[in-house]
């Protein structure tokens, strides 16, 4: 009677949440997600080894980049156009981390953006490993290339094949 005061029937403001079904739903979700959870995020670095006719068509103004390991902390960077060397940089550091930082800076300032008006497009990049350089270090170098948006990367053997 109190509710009917002539202003129409009022709905009760506080509602009850059906906790049983809510907890059921949450526990089912938790179980499913725990079972399907991926704890180690495995990713991939794609390497394109195709040459000749199967290689992606190169842009006319694009350059090629060669990273040649001379040792675990020594690296030569060769910028080429139509097979001819345009620029060569020799990077040497005390540690691998330092060398990667140097490589990153060299790519940004000397290779990809040599001047304010000029930007260089890299068609393909190749990495040549050297004995004494472990796979982890090679992947770090590939990472630096990919970070600088050079994605068409191939890996050569030590003999350059």
């Amino acid at each position, binding site marked *: 009677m109190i509710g009917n005061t002539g202003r129409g029937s009022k709905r009760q403001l506080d509602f009850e949440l059906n*906790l049983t079904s*809510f*907890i059921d739903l*949450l*526990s089912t*979700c*938790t179980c499913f*997600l*725990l079972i*399907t*959870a*991926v704890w*180690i*995020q*495995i*990713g*991939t*670095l*794609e*390497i*394109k*080894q*195709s040459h000749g006719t*199967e290689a992606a068509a190169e842009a006319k103004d694009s350059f090629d980049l060669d990273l040649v*390991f001379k040792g675990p902390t020594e690296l030569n960077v060769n910028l080429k156009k139509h097979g001819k060397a345009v620029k060569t940089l020799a990077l040497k550091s005390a540690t691998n981390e330092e060398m990667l930082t140097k490589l990153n800076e060299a790519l940004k300032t000397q290779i990809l953006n040599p001047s304010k008006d000029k930007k260089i497009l890299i068609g393909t990049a190749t990495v*040549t*490993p*050297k*004995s*004494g*350089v*472990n*796979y*982890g*270090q*090679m*992947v*770090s170098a*590939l*990472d630096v290339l*990919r*970070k600088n948006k050079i994605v068409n990367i191939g*890996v*050569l*053997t*030590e003999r350059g*094949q």
Partner: protein
Amino acid sequence: MRLNQSLVTANAFEKHLVNRRRKKSGGAKSIGFVLMLTSMVDMFSMLVIFLLQTFSNSPEILVLKGMELPNSITPSVVREATVLAIAKDGNLYLDQKLVGKVMDVTKQPDVLLNKLNLIKKQWTASHKTDFSGEINLQADREVESTTVSIVMAILTSSQFQAIQLAVIGK
């Protein structure tokens, strides 16, 4: 009820006796317990949110036991393909099956090439499109890079040209 009344009306010593009797008699705690529903629902909700955030629908590839993959800051999504693994001990595995020592395989790659050709034939038989040449290559971070490059050259010669190097994303 009587006990409660007596507790109200009794003096301090009587209260002590009643309490002691209550503790001794029965001694058993009540079997029913109150579940803290609010905190439980909070916990479940947080778990669900965390698990939903970390949920990934990319295919999983099996990693060899004891293998330490290199870290990468620019990883791409894994695509399902044959897995070739170079272990730290120098063994080479194709889809978790031992092929042989890497040094032997690099010198005489016929065993590996035959197995790769078989995979290629099976792929061609089950697909209508051209062979994609995709393969996942796992190698321990301590393995010589020259060894990995030789294995990659063998893969390329067998038309597996889209090599995906397995890494751990940061």
